[in-house]
Each structure stands twice: as structure tokens, then as C-alpha cells.
């Protein structure tokens, strides 16, 4: 009997040739995992939903008062300051939640990993979906605030999905890195919340990135979230807002590099997950 008669050959470190085919075959698992996370999230606490609304509102108020009223930072175009902040809070929260969820996802699902085969990448990827639900809630909040200020976005809003995808890819890249490192070194768990906290202040969430001196703009754009946030503002605030294109493309490049390197690292480490988790 020769090799061709078998469907599957298992050999050390060869990896599995049909990984991507398997990923397709397990697509329903992806959906079910995301569905489970969402169910659990909004079932466990009545507060679940309330919290998703309350958190951005609180940050919004604090930042508006702090940066808009006290520090008197300029807004972009003629957008009211709360709308400026909220336009940045949208992608930032999406990114921060997605990154945190997916970084912890392997550890929370350790049991599944040691007992069942499936392409492991499903776990950190599906963990991101819950954050998208929160994102939609914040988006509704944004609509409310815009209606209140009677501030209408223009046709650029149609490009918003591009920036959403960009935020998700960046978060996924970080999630791949962090979740795999988390399996290897358990103290990475403490690093992610810190990074997210820190990131909120160094990214242009409470202020416009135009306050950064021009000579520093490009350097500032090394933070991939700068590009995403600027993109969101460009798409949502409309007409008078300009995008600093060199910085934007640099951010996008860094974000994509994050995603690709994360994917490669994850695929490399994935093999030993079941043994060390």
C-alpha cells in the first residue's frame, strides 16, 4: 500500500499541508466560538450591555473635559470636541478590546486545545468578534451624539469599513503575538492590560494628531493606531478634515507587518501549544 492511498500523513515538524483547507472546513467552529463568546458576554451579567455603553461614555466625558475644556486643544475642522473624541474612541476601543480578548483566548480555552484538534488560529481570531459587537454599540452612541449636535458626516463615511478592517487586522496581529507568547510565558498576561492603558494616552484619542508638531508626525505614525484613528476622523468628521497621507501609509504598513509577523509566529508556535499549555 503506498502513500497516495492515505488521506492524512502525520509527521514531525512538517506541519500540515492542508492547514488552510482545514481552516475552511472548520469555519463553522469559528462562527460557533464567536457566538459562544457573545452569548456568554451578554448573558452572564445584565451589566454586560450597560457596561458596553457606559465605558465609552465615561471616557468621552473625561477626555472632552480634560483635553477640550481644560487644556483647550484644537479640534479638527469644525467638529464639536466630543465628536472628535468619539471618532477616535470607536477604533481605539475596538482595537483595545480585540487585542485583550484575543491575547487571553488561548489560555481561557486551554482545555479545548489539549483535547481536540482544529486549526488553533480560530481561537484568537474568533475572540475578536465580541469586540465588534461592542463596536456597534459605540457606533450607535456616535450616531446619537452626532444627531444631538446636528453634525452630518459626508460621503467619506462610506470608506469607514476600510478603517474598521485595518483596526481589526492590527489587533489580530497583536493578538497572534500575545496569545502565543502567553502560552509560552504566563506573565505576558500582565503586559497586555498595561500596553492597552498606555496606548490610550499615547494614541491621539483625547486630542487631534494635528497637535503633534509637523516634524514629528511621521515618527508619531509608527504607532499603527495613529493611522487608523486619523482615518476614522477623516471618514467621520467630513469635509474640512485632512489626512496626513505619508503618516497614514506608514501606519498601515506597520499594522500589516504586525499582522503578517504575528501570523507567522503563531503558525510556528502553534505546534507545541497542546504540549505546554
Amino acid at each position, binding site marked *: 500500500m503506498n502513500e497516495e492511498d492515505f488521506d*492524512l500523513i*502525520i509527521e*514531525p515538524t512538517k506541519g500540515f499541508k492542508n492547514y488552510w483547507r482545514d481552516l475552511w472546513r472548520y469555519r*463553522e*467552529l469559528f462562527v460557533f466560538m464567536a457566538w459562544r463568546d457573545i452569548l456568554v458576554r451578554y448573558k452572564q451579567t445584565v451589566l454586560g450591555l450597560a457596561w458596553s455603553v457606559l465605558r465609552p461614555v465615561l471616557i468621552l466625558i473625561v477626555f472632552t473635559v480634560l483635553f477640550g475644556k481644560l487644556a483647550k486643544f484644537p479640534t479638527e475642522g469644525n467638529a464639536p470636541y466630543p465628536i472628535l473624541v468619539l471618532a477616535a474612541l470607536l477604533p481605539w476601543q475596538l482595537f483595545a478590546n480585540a487585542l485583550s480578548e484575543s491575547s487571553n483566548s488561548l489560555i481561557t480555552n486551554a482545555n479545548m486545545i489539549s483535547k*481536540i*484538534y482544529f486549526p488553533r488560529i480560530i481561537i484568537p481570531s474568533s475572540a475578536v468578534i465580541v469586540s465588534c459587537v461592542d463596536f456597534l454599540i459605540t457606533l450607535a452612541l456616535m450616531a446619537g451624539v452626532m444627531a444631538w449636535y446636528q453634525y452630518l458626516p459626508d460621503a467619506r463615511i462610506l470608506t469607514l469599513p476600510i478603517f474598521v478592517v485595518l483596526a481589526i487586522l492590527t489587533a489580530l496581529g497583536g493578538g497572534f503575538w500575545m496569545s502565543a507568547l502567553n502560552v509560552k510565558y*504566563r*506573565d505576558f498576561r500582565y503586559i497586555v492590560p498595561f500596553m492597552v492603558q498606555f496606548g490610550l494616552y499615547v494614541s491621539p484619542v483625547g486630542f487631534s494628531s494635528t497637535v503633534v508638531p509637523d516634524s514629528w508626525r511621521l515618527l508619531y505614525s509608527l504607532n499603527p493606531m495613529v493611522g487608523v484613528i486619523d482615518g476614522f476622523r477623516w471618514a467621520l468628521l467630513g469635509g474640512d478634515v485632512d489626512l496626513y497621507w505619508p503618516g497614514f501609509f506608514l501606519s498601515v504598513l506597520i499594522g500589516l507587518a504586525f499582522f503578517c509577523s504575528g501570523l507567522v509566529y503563531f503558525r510556528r508556535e502553534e505546534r507545541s501549544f497542546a504540549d505546554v499549555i
Partner: protein
Amino acid sequence: MSTVIKVENLSKRYYLSHQQKENFPTLRDAITRTASNLGRRLLHPLRASSGQPLEGLDSTEEFWALDDVSFEVKQGDRVGIIGRNGAGKSTLLKILSRITEPTKGRVSIKGRVASLLEVGTGFHPELTGRENIFLNGAILGMTRVEIKRKFDEIVDFAEIEKFLDTPVKRYSSGMYVRLAFAVAAHLEPEILIVDEVLAVGDAQFQKKCLGKMEEVGKEGRTVLFVSHNLSAVRRLCARSLWIDRGQVSFLGDTEKTIQSYLSSSIPMKEGIVKFKEQQDKPAYISSVELLDEGNNAQSSFLVNQLVKVKVTFVANRRFTLWRVYVDLKNPDGTIIFSTTTQDNRDVCPIERGIYSASLIIPSQLLLEGPYLLSVAFGEPPTKRHDYHENAIVLNLCGTSFVFDRKIGFLSFPFEWELEDELDDKERC
């Protein structure tokens, strides 16, 4: 019949690490270790460059959980896999189901594999029975359409209709296991791989599960079945594989495999077995002794002597509920009886410490012959903290004349009433 699983020279290496205080490596450790190695490398550049491992580089020990295992399984075969704890059975199944990679060797598989290494993997306590059926089905590789089609059957099998919309965290452990097994039992793979999942659940349900697995086998599917329950293996599998310390010790007809497994698993002659310390467990059994009335340890007794089975265990924390379990098997694996400390009294909570529980097997209960005793320490309802299968052998020697020899399992001195039916008064 064609070969559907071909395993060639399969080996798997694990690293056991001794150094960490915690179970898991941390970045902090890695950094300090790298720094200290770097320092050492600078101090001893020659030693480092000669390619020898530096002391303390990592104090991990390598360990071969599987060592050059080869065998083949034909289509429609039902193969039992037996062996002591830690022999490498689960490791083999994990490689076959692609959960972990082999270190050496190769496996070729033909057909769709479903593996059941644990019941209820991925069950979420907050979700309802209905939701968990879908989730667990997807995890086991079923499509949504397939799950929908089998949904009623699964619910029927698990006998949980009334609780379908209750979160499974409110289920009793029995219901939980039934539901979990029911989902798995309705997989329709060409090759089914089952680890010791029948160790849980009540006897009646176990029987139902075995029946279901038999059915699966009759449909021409290939089954690999790991179990400690030798009579289940016997019932289900025509061929069996005995794995010992990571190697194939015997492969063949189930009867022969079980016989050679049992005859080799006779561990000692002294009447006492000591087990190694396991401080990381909440509790472990440290020794089992067979004592006579005067508390002397021995391994052979007369049928008309009583035997004390003294199980000494170490509790590393407080236990409110706890049990010591003992069961006694004859050499072909049939359980003659099983008993727990709960049988005739309620045990009181225990604090940290060392305790012993002695089971008294009355004289003249059992027939002569060798018996295997397995012991366990557990915390009801579901936790088994320590378990030693066939921990010790009890030899009972006969005293009766050859022509009085009894058959069966018991030598209990039953009461007889004798009457002379012609005379009114009793005789003798």
C-alpha cells in the same frame, strides 16, 4: 480489508521541567536565565563555544512518552488499548488525532477521524443544554446541519428534555456526562478514537454507552478504544494493544493481550506497596498494605483468615467530603466487589495530614486464588485525586480438600437447613 491506520516507529518526547516553582514558565524566569547564561558564557567562553550544554541552561529532563511504536489497524477493526497509568495511551491518541505532533516516526490515516479524549470538551457552564449541544457538536467536527438533524436523537439519548433550556451549570454531574457523551456518540466518523471516557457516569449509563459504541463498530467503522475497564474492552474489541512505558508490549487477540497484561501487572510480593509523593495534588495515596489480624504485612492469606487492606493517604488540604475506594478483581478483570469508606458510615471532614483507612475483608468470603486490588482517593461527586489500578495482589490459599473445591467467586459459609421429611423431628 485495507489498512486505515498505519503507525511506523512513532516516538514522542516530552520535557519535564524540575526547576520552576510554578507550573508555568514565565518571561521573568526566561530573562533571568538568559542573563545568567550570558554571564556564564562570558566567564567561560571556551566551555560555551565547545558546544557542550551549560549547566543550569535549563534543568529540564527529557522523557519519551512513546518510544518506537509501530502497528497497523485494518478497516472495521475495533482495537482496545490497555496499559497502566502513564504508559502513553493518551499520548498515542493525541498524536493520532493531530492534537500534538510526534517527535519521530510517521502515521498514515485513511478516512475521517473523530476523537473523544474527554467528554464535554468546550462545554460552557453558562450556556443552556441546547446551546451546548450545538457548540460541542461543532467542536467535535459536526456541521450545523448535521447537528440539527441529530438533535432530537441526542436529547433522547441523554434523557434531558426537561432541562434543555437550563444552563448546564445547574445540571447534576450525571446529567452533564450524559449530555456530553450523547453528543459525541452521534458523530459519524470513519475512525472513532475514544480515551477513557467511560470512567465517569453511572453504571447504567456506561452500559448504554458501550451499547452505542458496539453499534458504531457493527456499522463497519474503525474504533480505537482506551479503557481501564477490561471487561468493556473484552466486550467491544476483538484485538487489543498493550502499551507499557511507551512501547508496544503485546498486540493481538484481546484475550491473550489481557492475560499477558494482567500476569505482568502483578507488582510485588511483600504485602505492601508504597507510592511516590505527589505534593502537587490535593491528596494522594502513599501506601497500600495487606495485614492479617495481628497487623503483619503479607501477601498470602488463608481463605479462613481475615484480611485488612490498609490504605494510607496524605491530605494536602482540608476535605469536607472524601472517600477511599477499593475494588477487587479476579485475574480476568471481573470486579468481584467495590467498596468505599462511605459504605457503612458517614466520614467526617479531615484536616491536612496523613490518614489511613482499613478495609476488612471477612474470612471465608472469597474463593482461593489471586486477586488484584485497585485503590483510589476521591472527593465526591466527581473528583478522583489519586488512583492506582491493580495496586497490590492478594493471594488467598485454600484449606479445603480437593473434592470440596468450590466454583464461582465466593466461599461464603452459607446456612443450610436440613430436615428429615419422614420424621417430624430435625436430625443431625
